[in-house]
C-alpha cells in the first residue's frame, strides 16, 4: 500500500509537470498542442545524447533540453501556428496544424533516431527504504526521488513565475482575455510566444527527467499526449489547478492500477472511468467551458 | 374556466448570488390571438424570463404551463413540439441558406416522412419538400418577404432578418409565439410594417408574447402589458392602465428620454 503511495507521488509529480505544459499552451492560444508528447520525446533524446552519449553532466543536459524545446516551441508558433491562426479559415485549422506538427516531429525522430529504445545511466544510485519492504514497506529509489523533487521544483518555479513576475502576469492576462490584455498594453504576440516556449520547455523537461528512469524511444509521443489529454480533461483545461490535480490523479490511478491489475487493463479502466466522469462533468474538475 | 393558454407561476431564476427573476407570474388567457407584451427597463430580467418559458433555461423555482401541461424544464425542441416557439434577439440565421430554405427547414416538426424515408429519398419525403416549400412561400408572403425568397441570408439587411426569424417561428406552426425584441434596431417605417405583420399573425390565431423596448410599438399593438423591474413583476394591465401607472413611470424615470417614447 505504501509502495503504491510512493509510486503515485513520483508519477503524479512528473505527470503534473507534463499537464502544466499542455495547459499553458491551451490557456494562451486556445490550441491543444497535439505535439506535446513528441516534444516530451525530443527532450528525452536531448538528455540521452548530451548526458548519455556525450557524457555532459546531467545538470547541463536537462536545462539544454528545456532550452532546445523552447526554441522549437518559438519556431512552431512563429512559422506554423501564427499563420494559421491569422488566416482562420475554419477554427479547426489550428487543430489540424497541431496534429500536423505532431506527425512531423514523430517522423523526424523516427528518421534520425530510429525506432530503438534508448536509456541513460542513472544519475544517482541507491534508495530510501521506508519500513519493512516485505511487509507493507516501500522503496523509493534515489533516481525516482530526484525526478519527483525536480518536478515539484519546476512546478513551483512555474507557479511563482506566473504569479509574481511581470511576464507571468502578462501570461495570466492573455489567458483570461487576449483582447482586454492588448488594450491594457500587454504585448500579446510576445506573450503568446513566451507561453508556447514555456509549454514546450516543460514537456522537454519532463522527457529529460523520465529518460533517466524509463528510457526513451521515438514512438512514445502519442502515449504521453494521450496521458496529458486525460489529465487536462479530468482536471480541466486552461487552469493550473486542473493540470496539477489531473496529474496527481492520473499518477495515483496508474500506480494503483499497475499494482493490482494485469498490465494494459489499468488504462482501459482509466479510460472508461474518465469517459463516465466526463459525461457528468464535461469540463473537468476546474475547467471552464470551451468549444 | 379553462386553463390559460400559457402560464408562468412564481417563476424565479438565480445565477449564483444574482437574482434575475423573482416570483414572476403571468397568464395568457383564452381567446387565442392576443398580443401580450413584457416590458421593463434594462436588466429587468425579460430575456431570462423568455428563456425559461421556452426551455433554454430552467427556473430555479416556479412552474411554466402550456395549456395546463407542465413544461417546466423541458428541452426547447419538446416545448416547440407542444406549440410554443421562440424567436431570437440576435439575428441568428444560417448565412448560406436562402430565406425560403430557412423557412422550409423550420417546418421540421411538420414532416410526414420519417428520417429514414428522407435518407432514402422516398416519395413521401419528396412530397414533404414540395408541400412544406409551398407553406414556406405562404409564410414569406405573410411576412412580406417574398421578394427575398431566393436570396442568401448573409445578403439580407438586418430588418429583413428580423422578419425572417419570425417567419421561421411561424413555420413551426405554434399556438404561442415568443418574439424576443422583434422591433429592435428598426427604423420607424420598418417598425410600422413589423407591427402590422404582428397584428396579422395574431389575427390568424397565434397568441403572441413579446419582449420589447420600443414603447410606441408596444402601446400600439398590445392587448395586455406586463412590466418587470429588477426581476420582479411590478404591474400588469391594458396599455392605458400601464401608461398611467405611477410604479411603471417611476421605474422608467432616469432612463434616456428617447427610449421611452411614451
Amino acid at each position, binding site marked *: 500500500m505504501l509502495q503504491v503511495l510512493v509510486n503515485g507521488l513520483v508519477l503524479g509529480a512528473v505527470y503534473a509537470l507534463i499537464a502544466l505544459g499542455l495547459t499553458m499552451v491551451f490557456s494562451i492560444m486556445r490550441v*491543444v498542442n497535439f505535439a506535446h508528447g513528441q516534444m516530451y520525446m525530443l527532450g528525452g533524446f536531448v538528455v540521452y545524447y548530451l548526458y548519455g552519449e556525450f557524457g555532459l553532466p546531467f545538470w547541463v543536459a536537462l536545462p539544454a533540453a528545456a532550452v532546445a524545446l523552447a526554441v522549437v516551441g518559438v519556431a512552431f508558433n512563429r512559422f506554423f501556428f501564427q499563420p*494559421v491562426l491569422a*488566416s482562420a479559415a*475554419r477554427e*479547426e485549422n489550428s*487543430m*489540424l*496544424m497541431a496534429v*500536423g506538427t505532431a506527425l*512531423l516531429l*514523430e*517522423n*523526424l525522430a*523516427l*528518421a534520425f533516431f530510429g525506432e530503438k529504445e534508448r536509456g541513460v545511466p542513472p544519475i544517482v544510485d541507491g534508495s530510501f527504504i521506508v519500513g519493512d519492504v516485505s511487509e507493507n514497506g516501500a522503496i523509493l529509489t534515489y533516481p525516482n526521488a530526484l525526478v519527483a523533487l525536480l518536478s515539484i521544483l519546476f512546478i513551483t518555479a512555474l507557479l511563482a513565475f506566473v504569479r509574481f513576475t511581470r511576464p507571468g502576469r502578462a501570461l495570466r492576462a492573455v489567458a483570461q482575455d487576449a483582447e482586454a490584455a492588448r488594450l491594457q498594453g500587454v504585448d500579446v504576440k510576445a506573450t503568446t510566444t513566451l507561453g508556447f516556449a514555456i509549454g514546450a520547455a516543460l514537456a522537454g523537461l519532463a522527457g529529460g527527467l523520465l529518460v533517466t528512469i524509463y528510457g526513451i524511444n521515438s514512438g512514445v509521443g*502519442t502515449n504521453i*499526449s*494521450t496521458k496529458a*489529454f486525460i489529465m*487536462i*480533461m479530468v482536471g480541466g*483545461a486552461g487552469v493550473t489547478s486542473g493540470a496539477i490535480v489531473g496529474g496527481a490523479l492520473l499518477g495515483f490511478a496508474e500506480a494503483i492500477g499497475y499494482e493490482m491489475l*494485469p498490465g*494494459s*487493463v489499468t*488504462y*482501459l479502466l482509466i*479510460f472508461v472511468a474518465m*469517459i463516465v466522469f*466526463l*459525461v457528468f462533468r*464535461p469540463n473537468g474538475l476546474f475547467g471552464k467551458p*470551451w*468549444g | 374556466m379553462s386553463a390559460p393558454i400559457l402560464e408562468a407561476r412564481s417563476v424565479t431564476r438565480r445565477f449564483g448570488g444574482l437574482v434575475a427573476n423573482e416570483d414572476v407570474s403571468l397568464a395568457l388567457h383564452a381567446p387565442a390571438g392576443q398580443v401580450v407584451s413584457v416590458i421593463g427597463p434594462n436588466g429587468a430580467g425579460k430575456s431570462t424570463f423568455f428563456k425559461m418559458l421556452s426551455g433554454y433555461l430552467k427556473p430555479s423555482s416556479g412552474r411554466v404551463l402550456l395549456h395546463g401541461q407542465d413544461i417546466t424544464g423541458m428541452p*426547447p*425542441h419538446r416545448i*416547440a*413540439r407542444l406549440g410554443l*416557439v421562440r*424567436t*431570437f434577439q440576435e439575428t*441568428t*440565421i*444560417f448565412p*448560406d*441558406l436562402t430565406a425560403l*430554405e430557412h423557412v422550409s*427547414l*423550420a*417546418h*421540421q*416538426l411538420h414532416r410526414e416522412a420519417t428520417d429514414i424515408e*428522407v*435518407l432514402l*429519398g422516398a416519395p413521401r*419525403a419528396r412530397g*414533404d*419538400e414540395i408541400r412544406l416549400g409551398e407553406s414556406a412561400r405562404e409564410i414569406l408572403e405573410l411576412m412580406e418577404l417574398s421578394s427575398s425568397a431566393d436570396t442568401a441570408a448573409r445578403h439580407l439587411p438586418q430588418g429583413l432578418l428580423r422578419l425572417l426569424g419570425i417567419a*421561421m417561428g411561424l*413555420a413551426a406552426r405554434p399556438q404561442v409565439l415568443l418574439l424576443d425584441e422583434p422591433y429592435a434596431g428598426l427604423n420607424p417605417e420598418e417598425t410600422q410594417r413589423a407591427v402590422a405583420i404582428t397584428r396579422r399573425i395574431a389575427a390568424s390565431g397565434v397568441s403572441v408574447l413579446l419582449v420589447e423596448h420600443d414603447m410606441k410599438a408596444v402601446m400600439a399593438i398590445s392587448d395586455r402589458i406586463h412590466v418587470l423591474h429588477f426581476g420582479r413583476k411590478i404591474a400588469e394591465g391594458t396599455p392605458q392602465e400601464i401608461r398611467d401607472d405611477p410604479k411603471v413611470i417611476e421605474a422608467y424615470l432616469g432612463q434616456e428620454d428617447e427610449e421611452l417614447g411614451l
Partner: protein
Amino acid sequence: MRTLKTRDAAVAVAMLALLAVAPVAIGGSRYMLSVLMNCAGLSLVAAGVWITFTIGRINICQAGFALIGAYTTAILMARYGVSYWIALPASALVAAALGALIGSFILKLRGIYFSMLTICLTEAIRLAFLNGGDFTQGSRGITGLQQPFATDSALPMYYLAVALLAVGLVVTWRVHDSRVGRIFHAMRLNEALAESFGTDVWRYRVVAFGIACALGGLGGSYFAVFTQSVYPQSFTVEHSIYYMLYCFLGGLDYVSGAMVGAFALTILFELLSRFQQYQTLVYGVMMIAVILLLPNGVMAIRAAARPSRA
C-alpha cells in the same frame, strides 16, 4: 452553392469511373492495385469522419470503430464460420450500434474536449481488444482469414473495394444532400435556433455518429479480409488522425473530400518511397506545407472566389 455541388458530384463520379477502368490501364500490377484498394478502404472509413464534421465534431475515434468492424468480421468468420457476405453487413451494424450507444453519452462534449476524448476512446478500444482473452486472442490477433473470392486474381477484391467505396459515397451524399443533412448543418451553425423549431439535436447527433461508425465498421471489415488478419494495433490513434487529415485536406465542404484526401495523401506517400527512411519525414513536411497553403483543402482550389464562410 450550385457550382460547388456540381463540382463535387463530377469529381465523385469521375473518380469512380476511373477506378472502374483502372485495372485495364495499369496492366496486372498487383502493387498498384493494392495501393488503390488501400485508398478505397481508407476513403470509406474517412467518409465516416466527414459525416461527423457536418455535426460540428472533430472525430478522432474512427480507427476504433474500424477495429470493431474488423474484429466483428474476423471473429464471425474464424470462430463461427460465418460467410463474409453476412459478416460484412454485420460489422457495419455492430459498429453503428456501439457508436450510437457511446455517442449518446459523449456527443454532448464539444470542440477540443470531444476530440481529446475520442483519441482516448480509440486507445480504450484497442486495449479492450488486447484484453479480450480467448475471444479476441489478445496480442496474437486473428489471422488466416479467407478472402471471399476463390481466385488468385486481385480483381474481385479490387472491385469489392470500389463497390464499398461507392456505397460509402452514396450514403454520405444522401446524408448531406437531404433534409437530414440540412438539419445537421443548421445544428452545427446555430444549435439554439435549430432547437427552436423542434429539432431534437441530441437524437440527430447520435444518428449522424451511428452512420459514421457504420462506415468505419464497413471499412474495417474490408481491411480485415484485405490483409487477412486483424490485431489490436491494426487501427491506432495515428490512423484516426490520418482519416481526419484526409477530410480536412480533401475539403470539408465537399462530399468527395474524404475520398480526394485519402487518395491524394496515400498516393503521395507511395510516391515518396524513393526517400526510404526519410519517406515519412518528407511526407510530414509536405503535409504541413499543404495545411499552410491550402487551408480549405485540395478541392477548394480554383473554386469561385466566394468563400463559403459560416
